[in-house]
């Protein structure tokens, strides 16, 4: 069984929300839709759920025309970014809601609800009102409801984004376990996220979307190692991959007047010309013999420090593996890991990847 999206477009205003999207989702697999805010992730999920009708294109699930089925008859479940529950029902009735719509046997509902509550760790909260729960618990209720439904398609729209850091980490771990469990039920799991790290951790198939268009789809490893375009490389890395214009001439890679590096061996075959050079923030390191850059901003993030650097018109972000405070306009010397350099054509397509 698979879900097929064929040339889906949705253009409510001047701009495309979804632009000619064709995708294939196989059952029993997990997909992460990775894109920035307003890239069309939610619209895509809502279209699959049936809350939104596309202007053109078709959706087929298991050889049936999905678009002709109204939302309440499609066997889908959805968890939203906001914690959406039924405020007039208690926890137990919230989770039982989709099952009651199906007129399931009361005893069966009871056991299904209990199972779902155990999975998300809500036992003991059965008769609580939704307003009496914390944000994390409310999202667990929403999650339990979608699990209890045992839908063929489970849609998760940035379910962790409104939770605090600790809860997010905790729930993400649980997600992995839950997803493994739902593998057995042969359902399709589609998870939308803005966070590249989250997408990599979930380790499913990644679909990169931007401005309503699919830029690349593939395994996490594939998308990470061989981003199809410079845009994908920016979206799938946090901090975004440093993309700068450069010129390749006479065995040197010229980024600007002062930052010029010797072409490493693996790039020797590349013809001279203008390119975009891509370097991950983690592939930049401090080096006394390196190039001088001014610090614009420095941010401490856990055990690392992000440095926003500038050399004339050249800007880049570097991840330094230590916690240290840098002053603004302080001069630091850095170098690039030459073996990890990406090259993109000026139009954005990948020209060279270090993993090729």
């Amino acid at each position, binding site marked *: 069984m698979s879900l097929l999206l064929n040339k889906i477009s949705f253009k409510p205003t001047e701009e495309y929300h979804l632009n000619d999207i064709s995708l294939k989702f196989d059952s029993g697999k997990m997909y992460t839709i990775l894109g920035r805010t307003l890239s069309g992730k939610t619209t895509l999920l809502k279209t699959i759920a049936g809350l939104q009708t596309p202007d053109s294109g078709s959706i087929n699930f298991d050889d049936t025309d999905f678009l002709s089925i109204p939302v*309440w008859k499609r066997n889908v479940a959805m968890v939203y970014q906001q914690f*959406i529950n*039924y405020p007039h029902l208690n926890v137990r009735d919230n989770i039982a809601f989709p099952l009651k*719509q199906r007129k399931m046997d009361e005893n069966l509902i009871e056991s299904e609800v209990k199972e779902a509550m155990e999975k998300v760790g809500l036992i003991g909260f059965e008769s609580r009102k939704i307003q009496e729960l914390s944000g994390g618990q409310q999202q667990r209720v929403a999650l339990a409801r979608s699990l209890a*439904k045992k839908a063929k398609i489970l849609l998760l729209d940035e379910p962790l984004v409104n939770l605090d850091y600790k809860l997010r980490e905790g729930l993400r771990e649980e997600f992995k376990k839950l997803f493994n469990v739902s593998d057995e039920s042969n359902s399709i799991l589609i998870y939308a996220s803005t966070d590249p790290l989250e997408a990599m951790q979930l380790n499913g198939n990644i679909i990169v979307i931007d401005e309503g268009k699919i830029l690349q789809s593939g395994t996490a490893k594939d998308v990470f190692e061989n981003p199809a375009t410079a845009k994908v490389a920016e979206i799938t890395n946090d901090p975004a991959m440093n993309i700068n214009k450069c010129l390749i001439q006479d065995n040197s890679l010229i980024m600007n007047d002062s930052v010029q590096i010797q072409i490493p061996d693996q790039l020797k075959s590349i013809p001279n010309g203008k390119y975009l050079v891509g370097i991950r923030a983690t592939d930049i390191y401090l080096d006394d013999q390196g190039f001088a850059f001014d610090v614009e901003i420095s941010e401490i993030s856990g055990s690392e420090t992000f440095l926003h650097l500038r050399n004339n018109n050249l800007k880049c972000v570097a991840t330094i593996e230590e916690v240290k405070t840098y002053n603004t306009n302080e001069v630091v010397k850095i170098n690039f890991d030459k073996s990890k350099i990406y090259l993109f054509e000026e139009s954005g397509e990948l020209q060279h990847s270090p993993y090729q």
Partner: protein
Amino acid sequence: MNFKHKYVFLLPGLIVLIGILIFPIIFTVRLSLSGWNSFNPGLDFIGLKNYIRLFTDDPRFWQSFFRLSFLAITTVFLQYIIGFALAHMVWKDIKFKRFFRVLFLIPMMTTPVIMTVIWRTFFHESLGPLNDFLSIFGLQPPWLSSPGLAKVSIIVVEVWQWTSFMFLLMLAGLLSLPKEPFLAAAVDGASPFKKFIYVTFPLMAPISIGAIIIRLIEASKIMDTVFVLTSGGPGTSTETSSFFIFIKGLREFQMGYAATASFTYLIIMIISLTVIVKVLTKVLMRE
């Protein structure tokens, strides 16, 4: 702290409260214990005679009271159903939404007494347009002179006049509902009908209770419609409590007895509305 100041600041409010609420109630109680009428004006004291007469010897008061209960409950029930339905209709995005919203509010903007005069003309047995139309089918129903039909006429006018108000309250309630539960319900497999039963209706329960109580209090004072449309007739068949009290006090000038009826009516209304609120809360909120 000087406590005298406290009373100075409270005084204006207290004077108003005593003047328009406390004094009239106490005076009504005192009046109900007197035999004040057009022959013996003045606050004499006749003990509980008026109350004994009301409870043992006046079926007309009790008939008017039960008639009022019937009219109030029927009209408010119909107003609630129709008002909710209309509000639900223009709640979603439909064509000419604004036009319909204003249209449904027009009855509320009219003057009830004048509208009732127009309705009386409309219902007139030999001159009214309604019977003129029905005569095509050979019908000439006595809208205002048969006891049963006169009640129907009053219900029609009351429902027409006040459904707008119910519509307004219910629409305001619907518009204030969170959108998210409806999204969830659709994905959770609820058809539009079930969505109404399991989501819209329970979410609207607190607003429904408020609206029904407001209308019940208003409807239990039905007076102008009866006064203009039927004057309590034919006979006493459309007489309501307030109309009965009006007749006794201001037509027959039995002030003492009218006060007795008023005070008894007030106590019964307070008790029954309290019970109704409790019952509605239990039924609608499932608590």
